[in-house]
């Protein structure tokens, strides 16, 4: 494992597929789909390889890459690296877990894309571009590169929703673009202020500049406490829109409902997690004191998210909407964990990011299978599915159980750890939050049982359960969800070092 170009290779390996796809005639559906699917394998294999090596004790620092890229000024009185933007990639355990999650979900989503009905070629090219962006976000070593990769996810996503989505797809695509564009703009301001004031956008250097008193004296222009507070708030809003935090969640509902299910797998599974990733990486990483200052309100926001999403999910008529609000609700748990501001809380937040990624992808995979057969996901128009589609119904039930945090599945571990953290620091807020545990059970069971149990509503449906090809990704996800739930240590171990780093930052 010669580290020098490994990460670049990992991130840009889908590019190969994009180029190859360009040579395939767009009418050849099977070839395009197969090639599209196969193109997602190289990053998956590479990331799994890295993960395996990491578990065996390989040090991830060896993977870091660094090349000079853009130099903004060249004053003689400044040091070599000031106002220099490098192309630099590096990862730690946390990013690696996210990268593995991304590449895995992309492959599974590509498998679920067999239900895409038109213009497969363009679809897969955008799909692969999206993957490059997502992988890059987690590997970026500085904020500017992070931002570029982040924008790289925005554009393909816009087209994927706007072109291959459902009935109201264009509106969904525009709200996606507008909300996220706004978030990106705010993020850009933060990045630029930091860059202008410190002369760097590299995370480690920034950390050094912001917190080391010696380095602070060398700042181009000092950062006052007040300014830091504002920068943190701006950062919080920027990632809060992505996460999303109530009241910035409306765009996400539309995307959940309108985008093709295979894309929602990625959207709910990975893209939302970029918000969490950013909050943890930049929020806690760069502004620990400000984070501590707002911790109480972050926890309260988390509880609001949790309950707000849960209550709204309770009255939705459309299963996708239930899942959308359940995403809002589950993102609340991430905030709860972050608001706890201790090891258990942060670990819970990261666990929740991973676990919700798996569970949301799992449920939307089932939605895609279901929609293919019933052409509807309105709860009232379904019912008694367990009779005609026992396997799908069983998996839906399993997904619901995972989502409501049944022990033995990944959802419980994250919920438990996050609450464990919050109970240590803010027991009253946490106690209110536990109401969400009940509500999650209520809305999830209401939705899923009304679809699967009860008298059969639709005898007209071709009673076809999922085929073997469809079942494979479903079972892969189910096995992952269960294995994280049964033996969480396998997820805790790779994260340990990264969390300790963050706790050191917070330590003061």
């Amino acid at each position, binding site marked *: 494992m010669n580290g020098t170009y490994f990460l670049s290779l990992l991130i840009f390996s889908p590019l190969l597929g994009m180029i190859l796809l360009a040579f395939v005639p767009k009418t050849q559906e099977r070839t395009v789909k197969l090639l599209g699917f196969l193109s997602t394998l190289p990053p998956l294999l590479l990331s799994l390889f890295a993960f395996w090596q990491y578990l065996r004790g390989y040090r991830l620092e060896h993977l870091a890459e660094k090349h000079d890229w853009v130099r903004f000024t060249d004053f003689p009185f400044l040091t070599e690296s000031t106002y220099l933007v490098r192309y630099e990639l590096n990862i730690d355990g946390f990013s690696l877990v996210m990268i593995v999650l991304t590449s895995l979900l992309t492959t599974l989503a590509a498998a679920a894309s067999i239900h895409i009905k038109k213009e497969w070629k363009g679809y897969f090219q955008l799909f692969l571009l999206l993957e490059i962006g997502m992988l890059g976000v987690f590997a970026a070593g500085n904020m500017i590169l992070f931002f570029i990769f982040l924008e790289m996810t925005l554009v393909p996503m816009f087209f994927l929703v706007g072109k291959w989505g459902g009935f109201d797809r264009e509106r969904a695509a525009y709200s996606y673009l*507008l909300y996220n564009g706004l978030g990106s703009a705010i993020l850009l301001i933060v990045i630029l202020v930091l860059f202008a004031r410190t002369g760097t956008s590299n995370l480690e250097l920034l950390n050094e500049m912001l917190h080391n008193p010696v380095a602070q004296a060398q700042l181009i222009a000092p950062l006052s406490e007040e300014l830091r507070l504002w920068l943190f708030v701006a950062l919080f809003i920027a990632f809060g829109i992505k996460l999303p935090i*109530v*009241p910035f*969640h*409306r765009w996400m509902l539309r995307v959940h409902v309108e985008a093709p299910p295979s894309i929602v797998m990625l959207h709910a599974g990975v893209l939302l997690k970029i918000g969490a990733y950013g909050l943890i990486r930049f929020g806690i990483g760069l502004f620990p004191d400000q984070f501590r200052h707002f911790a109480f309100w972050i926890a309260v926001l988390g509880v609001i998210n949790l309950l*707000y999403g849960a*209550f*709204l999910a*309770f*009255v*939705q008529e459309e299963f996708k909407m239930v899942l959308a609000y359940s995403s809002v609700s589950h993102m609340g748990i991430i905030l709860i964990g972050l608001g706890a501001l201790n*090891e*258990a809380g942060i*670990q819970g937040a990261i666990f929740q990011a991973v676990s919700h990624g798996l569970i949301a992808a799992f449920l939307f995979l089932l939605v895609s299978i279901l929609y293919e057969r019933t052409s509807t996901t309105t709860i009232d128009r379904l019912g*008694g599915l*367990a*009779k005609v589609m026992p396997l799908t119904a069983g998996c839906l039930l399993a997904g619901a*159980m995972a989502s409501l945090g*049944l*022990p*033995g599945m990944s959802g*419980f*571990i994250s919920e*438990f*750890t996050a*609450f*464990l953290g919050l*109970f*240590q620091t803010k*027991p009253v807020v*946490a*106690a209110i939050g*536990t*109401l969400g*545990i*009940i*509500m999650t*059970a*209520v809305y999830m*069971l*209401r939705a899923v*049982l009304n679809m*699967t*149990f*009860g*008298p*059969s509503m639709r005898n007209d449906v071709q009673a076809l359960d999922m085929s073997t090809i469809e079942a494979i990704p479903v079972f892969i996800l189910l096995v992952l969800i269960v294995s994280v739930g049964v*033996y*969480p*240590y396998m997820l*805790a*171990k790779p994260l*340990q070092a990264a*969390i*300790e780093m963050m*706790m050191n930052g917070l330590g003061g």
Partner: protein
Amino acid sequence: MMEIAWIVPLFPLFSFFFLLAVGKKMKETSAYVGILMTLLSFLLSLAVLFDRLGGSTYKAEHVWLTIGSVKLTAGFAVTALNAWMLVVVSLVSFLVHIYSKGYMHGDERFSVFYAYLGLFTFAMLGLVLSPNLLQTYVFWELVGLGSFLLIGFYFYKEEAKAAAKKAFIMTRIGDVGFFIGMILLFWQVGSFAYDDIFRAAEDGTLSQTMVTLTAILIFIGAVGKSGQFPLHTWLPDAMEGPTPVSALIHAATMVAAGVYLVAALFPLYEASETAMLTVAVVGGFTALFAATIGLVQTDIKRVLAYSTVSQLGYMMLALGSGSYVAGIFHLTTHAFFKALLFLAAGSVIHAVHTQDIEKMGGLWRKMPLTGPLFLIGTLAISGVPLFSGFFSKDEILVAAWTHGHVALFWIAVVTAFFTAFYMFRLFFLVFGGEKRHDEKDVHEAPAVMTLPMIVLAVLAVAAGYVHTPWFGTFLGDWLTDGAYAHETAPGWIMAVATAVSLLGIFLAWLMYGKRSLARDWLSSRVPYTYSLLWNKYYIDELYMRTVGYAATAISLLLSYIDRFVVEGIARLIAATVHTSASLGSRMQNGQVQMYGAVTFVGLALLVVILAFTGGYL
């Protein structure tokens, strides 16, 4: 043998996965897989029990999850209580497995049923073996899942769907109490392990308020699981599941879990007077409350269900009165005679295809085996001397009396009277009198169903003798490691207990057996009380009207806020941008003079601003 006790739950788990995977092809032969696996579990449990009889506690752990420097472990422990529970659970489960082969014969999803039974048994066995609270919680929830799946087994029935959902949600409400209590304990003690918690409760690391708070929170969990008031409403509805499931839920698994939890955490409860009192009062109240409802119900399974709620109240009362042994003893005897009653009821339902006792009658002759077996169960639950229920109930009454809960003692006595009455009312209505059903061909159940009942009937009599004031208190001595306090109870307690149960039986016989007393002489005198009881004190309706409606109302309110306020603000911002843009574009009308005017106004504004700000913008 104790080192491999962890394998006990794995047999039924294997049965679950195996039957899910290939059960469809195996059809009804899948029953043998389930039966074999539970038999192995049972045999191994027996071996573990005998091993434990001579040995001491065995405990093994493995790292499960790390949080920073804190290591959470998973493992298993074999204590006296665990070993005892293992045998009870695996035995009842084994018998239910056998019985189901006859009862579920011909069902389309036969193998699925056995798979679920496996999961359920696995969860309960795992719960019993857990050495720490967190692991208990994990299996606790899995038990809930098992019961949920089994109650909703006839998923195409609207009632089954509702019942399954209700069971899950009601118990989940309790579970949240458990969840909070568990986490609070963790931050106080620094560990989930039972031993550490007890040590902390003893040496005062835990403050008195904290002990009380956590004990009561965890008790809420037990209230949910064990169907205690006010979270009991799911248990009668759970009768929607197939009858063998009811036997399993009521006897050995689900509801026993709550009692087991309190028993397992007993040292924590003992450290707090308030918590003990809460447990005792809730238990005593539930016992009476459920017994009164049981008096008037007409569904055979529902009567049994309310009797379970009531008996569980007894167990809680025992635990709350400080008698750990009496609680576990009654749990054991109850497991046997309640399983027997349910299986016999299942046999009856199997024969007459109805659950309404008004439509039964005269089955004594038609079912020569089920009838006497049911009678044995009824005698045991009524506390007739020499049957197991008599000894365990007596133990509880003694505990309540010696602990000074006089009011609770009398409540328990009244409950015993009610229990005897409604159980014999049930018996006479089902088996006595003339035939009131229109089933032509009523026949006795097949041997595969009667055999487990016979075993249970033997146990329903014999189980009482492991702990009697006359022949020795083996169970008590063993469970408490020989430290069992032999309380000399006043002899009149036993006499009173016997008297009230016989009185109840006599009254039932007068009304339903001999019929010298009109059936409605009481109900016609107090019609309002009667309908109150018939409608189960309107608790369901109350919950629906308050909590149910409130949740819906909040949800709807929020959904309007979401749709109009949150979305509205977003739209407002969008509209503002849109309006200003269209205003701007309207100025671009091609009229040079308009442009000139705009330029001039802009210039003028700029000058004014600069003049006011002194040149700095």
